[in-house]
């Protein structure tokens, strides 16, 4: 038989999703925090801190969606209809947010409306993504190759709680981004916001770590049976250390470290979820291999992906490099 491409596609898709969560996560977080910032100059600075990069970040949602469709179509066909309304809300919120971002400069008279649309769009999109993640961990009602639950199965305590938790998670990323990109009073404000979000995020991580093993015996067995517990105990320990470091970095007024720490916390949560669910792509039902598309499909798409992806990544890195340094309310972007 030919080469098994499933592990490679798993890694590619995992990276795309993680990239999206971190990068669109911080600009969605900034979008939500924008609603809390007072003063025109401060608001303009907040906006300018994400202006050059937000739409590039959002493109990775398409990569993630289309990557799932191409590499694991069965998962796409089961999961997406199961979260019909969260996906609808996320898409409309993102569209509205994107349009608001442009139009708020156009119509000063409607500035308040488009500002609210930008902030509200960020909030709804974040909450909806959290609900999708929560529904994913909760599992789906599957018969054969189809989702057969109702379009409101996601309306349950766990997915809704994850939706709320992700708002604080993206809020943490956004606040840390602002710490990195702003100065003075605004930076102090962002630091306080980051600290509040950090506490909420840690509470959420702890709650999820208790809730999921209780709800899913197979996850409990994965983590707490011998010898797994010995191999896996570093995961919570490292997470706790990162949390401590994050708190210290904020207290000592570091600028870059909090953002990196927030990314590390997301990475640990990502790894935690992966350990809990591996090797399932439709949790508790289909493995990555069972849901994979034909070998020929994966191979055909891999050729172009391996050629174009590095170029896109280098290009993205360059555009972040160009816009390095502090954002300001006037100069630069707008």
């Amino acid at each position, binding site marked *: 038989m030919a080469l098994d491409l499933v592990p490679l596609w798993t890694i590619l898709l995992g990276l795309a999703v993680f990239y999206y969560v971190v990068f669109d996560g911080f600009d969605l977080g900034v979008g939500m925090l924008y609603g809390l910032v007072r003063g025109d100059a401060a608001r303009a600075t907040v906006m300018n801190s994400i202006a050059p990069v937000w739409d590039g970040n959002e493109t990775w949602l398409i990569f993630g969606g289309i990557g799932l469709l191409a590499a694991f179509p069965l998962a796409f066909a089961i999961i997406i209809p199961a979260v019909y309304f969260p996906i609808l809300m996320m898409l409309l919120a993102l569209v509205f947010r994107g349009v608001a971002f442009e139009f708020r400069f*156009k119509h000063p008279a409607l500035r308040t409306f488009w500002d609210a649309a930008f902030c509200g769009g960020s909030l709804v999109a974040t909450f909806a993504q959290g609900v999708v993640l929560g529904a994913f961990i909760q599992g789906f009602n599957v018969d054969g*190759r*189809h989702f057969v639950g109702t379009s409101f199965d996601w309306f349950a305590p766990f997915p809704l709680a994850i939706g709320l938790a992700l708002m604080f998670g993206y809020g943490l990323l956004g606040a840390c981004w602002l710490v990195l990109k702003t100065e003075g009073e605004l930076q102090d404000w962002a630091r306080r916001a980051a600290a509040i979000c950090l506490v909420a995020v840690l509470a959420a991580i702890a709650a999820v770590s208790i809730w999921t093993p209780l709800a899913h015996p197979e996850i409990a067995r994965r983590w707490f049976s011998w010898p797994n517990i010995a191999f896996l105990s570093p995961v919570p320990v490292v997470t706790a250390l990162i949390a401590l470091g994050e708190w210290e970095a904020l207290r000592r007024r570091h600028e870059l470290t909090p953002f990196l720490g927030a990314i590390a916390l997301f990475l640990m949560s990502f790894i935690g979820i992966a350990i809990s669910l591996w090797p399932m792509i439709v949790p508790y039902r289909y493995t990555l291999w069972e849901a994979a598309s034909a070998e020929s*499909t994966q191979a055909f798409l891999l050729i172009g992906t391996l050629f174009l992806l590095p170029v896109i990544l280098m290009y993205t890195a360059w555009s972040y490099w160009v816009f390095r340094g502090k954002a300001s309310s006037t100069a630069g972007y707008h």
Partner: protein
Amino acid sequence: MTLDPVLLSRLQWSWVIAWHILLPAFTVGLASYIAVLEGLYLVTGEEVWFRISGFWTRIFAVSFGMGVVSGIIMPFQFGTNWSRFTDAAADVISPLLSYEGLMAFFLESSFLGVLLFGRRLVPAWAHFFAAAMVAFGTLLSAFWILATNSWMQTPQGYKIVDGRFEPVDWTAIIFSPSFPYRFLHNVTAFYITTAFVVLGVGAWLLRRGRATEDARMMMRMALDLLILIVPLQIFLGDQHGLNTLEYQPAKIAAIEGRYDTAQPAPLTLFGIPDDAAATMHGAIEIPYLGSLVLTHSWNGAIKGLKEWPADQRPPVGPPFFAFRVMVGIGVIMLLVVIVGQVLQLRGRLWDSVWFLRLCQLTAPLGFVAVIAGWITTEVGRQPWTVYGVLRTADSVSPSLTGANVAWSLAFYIVVYLIMFPTGIAFMAGLVRRGPQQPDLEAPVSPIESGRPHEPFESAARAAPQL
């Protein structure tokens, strides 16, 4: 009344894609036009090309931005509403859709920024190159999307394993029988659509006495292109029709409004189709013409829909009427272009106010024709998603209720009715400002990232404020 999730999902798909298709219909042609203008400026160094190109680039930026935003919705529709189709066909169509996303993003990120912001920052040849690559990128997007659609119309290169399509031959999949005709017919339609917009805008500027030189150049270029490609399009449409007759004869029967097989077949000009009774009420027919058009002979046979079981017939109404709208617009366009050329030859183009008015009126016709053509081919494909193999009714997500889809459709309608009119009003504002003298003293806009981070805003900034 019960709500049918299949019908509502089809309406939702139609709603989101009908709005979306208007943007490529405009941007594919406009990107090529801008590339030509930049090329002319590079070769001649005359400022008029530079001004016209700048004018249209600002409008291009807005429509492109709206195309990207409304395009994000599309791939998710496959999952939310058409999960059984996705499960069955993803192995074949997903790489085609993915390549569209990857390549479009690649070319967009690399070259669109230079095109939009780089006028004063890069040499003219680099700016021309960027414009050409953006134009190439829009054509590549059309290539992959139409390859996907064509495979659904005339599937080949696959085998069925456990009820799912598995790829066997990628070349056969990408170049399915209807693809070359569909691609050429579509791209030509997009070019014509753009050219009529350029013609109409030029006429409007001329009547206002604004930017006269630029406006005349726009009209002349549009008319000279159109006299070539409108007749070409009529030929391509005919060829596409013959191809459809070969591979999707039921679609042709629906387009012709033909329930009974006939030899020789007349051409039905008009009538009221009645699917339940399988008859055409009050049909106005021209003898022999149907055979002549479709088989290119006096006595060719045209199959009627009664040759197919009732559950394999497409509805006749939408393809029948949409086709007549499309062809009617084609005829009007041809007349406008011929009249315009005659006036130009007689040197009376610029002071024939009635003709300038006519150009303004016909400017949006291309969009109507594109939508009509799309309704013809997509409704004519029914009742299948993958022609002859997978039914539309068996493609929809099994978990959806009619009420679910009714709600989501209502949301899409509300949001699109806010977003699109706002964007269109903004483009109209850019047209009203007209072409501008290049202001070499103006501060250089920041383009270092080379990406159109906010195309709407940059478009506005590039245009001096009124």
